[in-house]
């Protein structure tokens, strides 16, 4: 068993489940609706597991990354639209993560925010330039695990487990008016989208090819997905818990990484605070790398350029230029002074609109026995694949009206 591969799953899940947008968003979901939105976490976690497992399996068996399938299966025009939308989502998310890391550094060092954005940009470029893909997985995957402190805190707060169990069943909170009901559904759709972010699938499958997975690694892929994403789901659930058990009774709206760490500091003191801030540093940094590399993967796979961190930069010129450009543009967006959390909340909602276009080609290829042979989807994978495709299509249709009706989730 190549145990080190687990960090690809962990890094992918960290970059998707606990990046700056979802971290604050999930805490706010708990703060506003207690445990009532908890059901979205397992629902989304199983969904992202199903599709990352399929994408990883296609990568292992046929060496085909997601965006190659998107172009071959949906045609040029539809793939181009998906590409442009995914680039926009990646860029906005990357900008938010750079802003998030800069905010964390500001808390620790007290230097000017804009200077720290430049420091963060330089640090990320140097990491991706000099550190191998495997070590990026290990450093940022392992570092992000510090966020387990949120899980410990959620249990430490001593939640009423009956309420927790009730939260696993979809239900609109009692006494909710029309405004609260709309807000509840907005949070449900956005939380689902933030768990099933499309760049997780792009990054995961491309990462499998970077790690040279072969058909014999199909079992490993399944294990990596199960462990990595279950951990991500557990962290997400614990954020709902901390929101419910700490922020709601104290009437605090966690709108920044510093505020999010407050709950932990309250329980575990300065050490807890440092663990939370350290975990966020690696999770946000990992998400920035994940989104910048995803942009480069998508462009290269769409256009048929040589790609991969494993190649010498001189042999993958446009791929290298693409991730450099994503970091640079994201730093410019962050420097413009927009609130990183607002950017990523919009990008989360727009993500759900492109999800069906990303997932359909993966499902079509993974279930095709002429392509995948004995590794094609079984009845369970097909049933789950279609269920989630219908679910995210519905969520995609509902996302924009809900965004406008709730004024971007502000009610």
């Amino acid at each position, binding site marked *: 068993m190549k145990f080190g591969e687990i960090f690809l799953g962990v890094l992918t899940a960290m970059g998707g489940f606990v990046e700056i947008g979802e971290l604050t968003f999930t805490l706010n979901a708990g703060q506003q609706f207690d445990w009532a939105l908890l059901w979205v976490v397992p629902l989304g976690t199983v969904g992202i597991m199903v599709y990352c497992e399929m994408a990883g399996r296609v990568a292992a068996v*046929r*060496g*085909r990354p997601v965006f*190659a399938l998107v*172009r*071959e299966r949906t*045609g*040029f*025009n539809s*793939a*181009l639209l998906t590409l442009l939308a995914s680039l926009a989502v990646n860029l906005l998310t990357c900008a938010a993560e750079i802003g998030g890391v800069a905010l964390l550094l500001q808390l620790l060092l007290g230097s000017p925010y804009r200077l720290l954005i430049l420091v963060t940009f330089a640090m990320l470029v140097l990491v991706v*330039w*000099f550190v191998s893909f495997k070590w990026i997985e290990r450093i940022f995957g392992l570092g992000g695990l510090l966020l387990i402190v949120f899980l410990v805190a959620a249990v430490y707060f001593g939640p009423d487990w009956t309420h927790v169990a009730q939260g696993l069943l979809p239900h609109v909170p009692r006494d909710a008016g029309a405004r609260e009901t709309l807000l509840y559904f907005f949070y449900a759709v956005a939380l689902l989208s933030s768990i099933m972010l499309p760049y997780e699938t792009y990054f995961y499958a491309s990462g499998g090819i970077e790690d040279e997975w072969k058909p014999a690694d199909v079992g490993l892929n399944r294990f990596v997905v199960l462990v990595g994403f279950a951990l991500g789901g557990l962290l997400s659930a614990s954020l709902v818990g901390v929101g419910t058990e700490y922020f709601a009774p104290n009437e605090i709206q966690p709108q920044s990484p510093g505020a999010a760490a407050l709950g932990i500091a309250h329980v575990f003191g300065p050490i807890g605070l440092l663990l939370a801030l350290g975990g966020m540093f690696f999770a946000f940094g990992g998400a920035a790398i994940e989104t910048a590399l995803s942009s480069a993967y998508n462009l*290269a796979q*769409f*256009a*048929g*350029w*040589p*790609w991969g961190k494993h190649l*010498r*930069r*001189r*042999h*993958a*010129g*446009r791929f*290298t*230029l693409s991730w450099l450009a994503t970091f640079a543009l994201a730093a410019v967006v962050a420097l413009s002074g927009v609130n990183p959390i607002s950017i990523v909340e919009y990008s989360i909602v727009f993500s759900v609109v492109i999800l069906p276009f990303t997932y359909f080609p993966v499902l079509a290829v993974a279930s095709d026995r002429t*392509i995948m042979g004995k590794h094609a989807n079984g009845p369970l994978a097909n049933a789950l694949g279609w269920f989630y495709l219908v679910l995210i299509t519905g969520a995609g249709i509902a996302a924009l009206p809900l965004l406008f009706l709730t004024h971007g989730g502000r009610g």
Partner: protein
Amino acid sequence: MTKPKPFDLVRDLLDHELVDVDHVPCGRVDDIELELTPQGLSISALLVGPGAWSPRLPALARMIARAMFGRERVRVPIDEVIDIGDVVQLRSRATQMGLGILDRRVGRWLSRIPHA
């Protein structure tokens, strides 16, 4: 005798990745050139580049794409193709067919930076 498997041009060839003799990706099949011969319709070349994919776009997007990327296209004669599977395998190097030129230019520029 088994019936030969039908070959679907759109599904099995259009938009597929081209790899050269060294298995280096060098573009995608952006369009297919057909010719009418006494034996029937046959593929004469694969077309690659903005000049090949921009006509597939709606009018306004086509205009923007042409203004941004030009109309350059590379014609790969069908004799160059040795296999069509997940990818389209070519018998020559990408450079010999005029493919991947920009990638090499960017690569040369990047090679001036240490550790490239």
